[in-house]
């Protein structure tokens, strides 16, 4: 009995002294990061709001025009008031939020795919391929993003028809905006990924892999890519925040997602005309953008400190 206890104790002691895996260390650093935890909680609340809210209000209700109650101020029935065609703003912030967040996440997926592909191919193969790809990256980098966004969204607007998914219909402009934001924000990531490849491709483990005849694609994606995962995750997270803001900018200018599909951005595109008399029309959607972007930025900042302790801003 005593022996068994002693063994259990030693085991406990051993497991306590056990080395932390990098993931565990990152998770510990992340948990201690107050702002990151705050950001994570806030983000969870917002996601609960946009998902839970859709159980209370139907999408039909969010898109229903009721011309008898246009521009009514916040009341018990419509806590956030109604807009120019009598739609309930509370319900629209719920559905708009879903679309805004979906756009943010999908745009980042697009930009990560493009950025990682361009960066790894350029970095791994080097030579003329690298030169061409990097010149192109640099050219894209030199054009201010908002200008490119406006041009591309105008170019592609109306090219994708309204589509149905899971019984809901979405304006085709959602796809356009996802692609456009994704295609204008991959350049930074491509550079980071390329730098990882440049520094790693001459190392022994890559040479060893080559010697035993590992195919290039396997070396690129399985051996080297995981080493730049930290920066991909961090810049991807911060990218979601930037994408939500960019969606808001193009939608605010009226070339973004088209009605009746709501986003936090296009709820604001008429805001200017209601600045003085109907402030509830622009305060609430803007507040949601602010809170979401803020929480994602906190989260990304914490992730950077946790995963990538060397780089700091």
């Amino acid at each position, binding site marked *: 009995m005593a022996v068994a206890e002693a063994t259990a104790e030693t085991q406990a002691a051993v497991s306590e002294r056990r080395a932390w895996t990098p993931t565990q260390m990152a998770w510990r650093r992340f948990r201690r990061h107050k*702002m990151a935890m705050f950001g994570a909680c806030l983000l969870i609340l917002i996601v609960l709001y946009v998902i839970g809210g859709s159980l209370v209000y139907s999408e039909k209700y969010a898109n229903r025009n009721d011309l008898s109650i246009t521009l009514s101020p916040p009341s018990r029935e419509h806590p956030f008031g109604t807009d120019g065609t009598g739609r309930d703003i509370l319900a629209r912030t719920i559905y708009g939020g879903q679309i805004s967040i979906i756009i943010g996440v999908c745009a980042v997926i697009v930009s990560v795919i493009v950025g990682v592909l361009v960066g790894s191919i350029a970095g791994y193969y080097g030579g003329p391929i690298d030169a061409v790809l990097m*010149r*192109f990256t*640099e*050219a*894209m980098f*030199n*054009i*201010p993003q*908002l*200008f*490119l966004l*406006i*041009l*591309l969204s*105008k*170019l592609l607007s109306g090219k994708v028809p309204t589509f149905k998914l899971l019984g809901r219909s979405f304006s085709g402009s959602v796809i356009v905006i996802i692609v456009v934001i994704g295609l204008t924000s991959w350049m930074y990531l491509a550079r980071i990924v390329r730098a990882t490849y440049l520094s790693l491709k001459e190392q022994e483990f890559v040479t060893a892999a080559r010697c035993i005849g590992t195919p290039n694609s396997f070396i690129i994606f399985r051996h080297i890519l995981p080493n730049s995962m930290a920066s991909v995750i961090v810049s991807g997270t911060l990218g979601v*925040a930037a994408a939500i*803001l960019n969606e*808001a*900018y193009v939608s*605010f*200018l009226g070339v973004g997602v088209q009605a009746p599909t709501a986003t936090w*951005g296009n709820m*604001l595109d008429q*805001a*200017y005309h209601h*600045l*003085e008399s109907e*402030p509830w029309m*622009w305060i609430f959607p*803007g507040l949601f*953008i*602010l809170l979401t*972007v*803020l929480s994602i*930025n*906190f989260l990304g900042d914490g992730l950077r400190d946790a995963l990538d302790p060397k780089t*700091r*801003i």
Partner: protein
Amino acid sequence: MARYIIRRLLQAIPLLLIISVVLFVLMNAMGDPLASFGGRRRIRSSDRERLTRQLGLDKPIAVQYAVWLIGNDWMDIDLDDDGVPDTKGTRLGILRGDWGQSFMEKRPVSEIIAERLPNTLMLMLTTEVVILVFSLFIGIYSAIRQYSLFDHVFTGLSFIGYSMPIFWLALIMMFVFAVYFKKWGLPYFPTVGMYDLAVGKTIPQVVWHMVLPVTTMSIMSIAGYSRFIRANMLEVIGQDYIRTARSKGLPERVILLGHALKNASLPLVTIVGMDLPILLGGAVVTESIFAWPGMGRLFWNAAQDTDIPVLMGVLTLISIAVVMFQIITDITYTFLDPRIRYD
């Protein structure tokens, strides 16, 4: 050094060519420039054909690009569609300083840009100065008082600052400082335009109209800049030579401003060098909200009308500025930090 500069300038040429090709292809895929040509009236199809020919829009895109780049005064064009090229081209191409004619305003792009550029520069340079003054102060102060109340408050504020859509901040500024100040009988700020038409374009008027847009844009950028300066200052303050400076008894002010700030501002040069050329493009969103007649609004209006020559003009100007400023930044670096050698 001279060789380095020449090499960089030579490298810039293909880069600018690539940028212009990318832009040109994008623009021409953007839509029908003739759609808003006649204003509200619909243009007749015969007119449309004639205009398409006159503007050279019937040519393949490679030819259109060549005309934009090097002009068409060396070839004859067929204006009346009889199959015989009979009229001499008049375009000189951007390489010889001909920026083309605006489709909408029917006057040279260079003239339109020359009108708008001073307005934008006035607005943006003022903003940049405000940003630098405030963010240097906030950044340095929060670095030397790290984890103090001041530091925490401004760290929080700066996160809020760069998480906010700028147009939303602009709306709030207008709501408080124009709508509510007016309501409360306080002196309120104008929200649109550059000057009051009744008073005319006087200096006090323009300054008065600049207050809100400058404040809005500054708040956004001070957030990022001050964080950046704080991080750099913190890094430098931890260095050995700062300890050396302290131990030989230099006054704290000399240490901070003479030793620390000088080194901490090196990365700042990069950021300013990246931001300055973008300022030329103005701020599309801010300028449209405050109806400021600058480059950003010019671009936005031209984008709505698919006025390709104007769009190309604005973007070419910005691209040249971006590329040139990168070179200037790198050269400035060698002067500020003699350890850096490019040769």
